């Protein structure tokens, strides 16, 4: 297992795989997003209770899933970086956290927009919302900590430890609707006894979730690649400065 993982540690191999995956991920994002939005916004029926507002859910629920999924990716990447000192894992963790923060923000905003007509309030301090808000702050902390040091390696390590500490929040988010009697409704898709929503609504929901995942993959590849180029540039520039300022020994 570790051996096969280490094969992907090679940046050159990563770039080759990334170049293969990127067009597929981008294409699938556009296709699935188009299909999911059409089915969700036009073709699916309005809810018998929520009316047309239910369509917000086709963005809200996938965004919430992604918020947690991206944090899990960061946590796994951080553990990998700390245990195997894997430079690519650090890059993945750092490139993921702004994306995850955006998904979390999207989830909070769409939830709020849905809450106003449905619950009559923009915000309620119930367990699910509060724990997602904490997740958002964890993302912000992760982002600022990784950039707070003059030495980027130290920043990456500190951020990894913080990411692992923040993992305690993930089960709290997932089970908050079961542990506390909250305003937020309990799970209706990932249940042991099967989803409780109708197929006509489940299909666009899953398509949107898949589209969001593909979007994340495409964005992650772009960001990691940009960061790798940035580091190369920095090293090249430092080398150029060194060559220019340090005169060659006379003897």
């Amino acid at each position: 297992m570790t051996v096969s993982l280490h094969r992907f540690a090679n940046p050159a191999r990563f770039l080759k795989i990334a170049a293969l995956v990127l067009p597929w991920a981008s294409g699938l994002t556009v296709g699935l997003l188009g299909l999911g939005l059409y089915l969700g916004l036009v073709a699916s029926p309005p809810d018998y209770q929520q009316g047309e507002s239910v369509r917000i859910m086709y963005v809200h629920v996938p965004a919430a899933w992604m918020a947690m999924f991206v944090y899990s990716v960061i946590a796994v990447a951080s553990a990998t970086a700390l245990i195997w000192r894997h430079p690519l894992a650090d890059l993945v963790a750092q490139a993921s956290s702004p994306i995850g923060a955006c998904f979390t923000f999207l989830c909070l905003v769409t939830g709020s927009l849905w809450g106003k007509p449905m619950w009559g309030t923009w915000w309620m301090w119930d367990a699910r919302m509060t724990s997602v808000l904490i997740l958002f702050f964890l993302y912000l902390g992760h982002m600022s900590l990784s950039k707070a040091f003059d030495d980027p390696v130290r920043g990456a390590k500190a951020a990894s430890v913080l990411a692992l500490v923040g993992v305690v929040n993930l089960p709290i988010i997932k089970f908050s609707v079961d542990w506390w009697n909250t305003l937020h409704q309990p799970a209706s898709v990932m249940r042991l006894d099967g989803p409780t929503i109708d197929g006509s609504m489940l299909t666009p929901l899953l398509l949107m979730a898949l589209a969001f995942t593909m979007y994340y993959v495409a964005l992650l590849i772009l960001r990691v690649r940009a960061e790798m180029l940035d580091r190369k540039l920095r090293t090249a520039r430092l080398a150029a400065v060194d060559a220019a300022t340090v005169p060659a020994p006379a003897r």
Partner: protein
Amino acid sequence: MRPFLRLVRRDLRLAFRQAGDSATVVMFFVLAVVLIPFGVGPEPAILARIAGGIIWVMAMFAALLSLERLFQADYEDGSLELLVLSPQPLAATVVAKCLAHWLSTGVPLILAAPLLGLVMNLEADGIGALVVALALGTPTLSLIGAVGAALTLGARRGGVLLPLLVLPLYIPVLIFGVAAVEAAISGLPMRPHLLLLGALLLAALPLCPWAAAAGLRQALE
């Protein structure tokens, strides 16, 4: 065990010789709470209603104030490197430093809390619950804070960054701490909330020193 106790004694002695640190924290705590009646108006009913939450939040800010100092002084004069090199496990060193931090700032906060409860018109039941909840909650604050303090060691603007990292993690302590006070005021059992606070402390006790030790090792690499 001997080096552990010695480290606690050393940190306490340092804290009390520069008596400023503990006193400043308590003064900040008192002053911050006393500002609230000016902000929301001196009506006893309103103050009694919000007292538990206000005192808890201000105690957290006060605990945060002194956190930056937890490893900073040792880091700057090099004694942290010696502590890391010592045969005692680094996690135990962190626990010793947290214990000293709690004794020098957490305990004074707990002692000042009943007085502030009186000022804020909190009922006697509420004051009792507040003290017990603070006694269970403030060690957790020191432990979680140690992780933040270790991770921001040597960072640019570490003092601003620290609250950003630590405050979100403080929220569970705040929730159950305030819930205990509210339960006591409204005549409900406060035991479940206190048990949850105890559970948080028991979870933080092994996990936080471990994470803080990892942070310290990175800072010294």
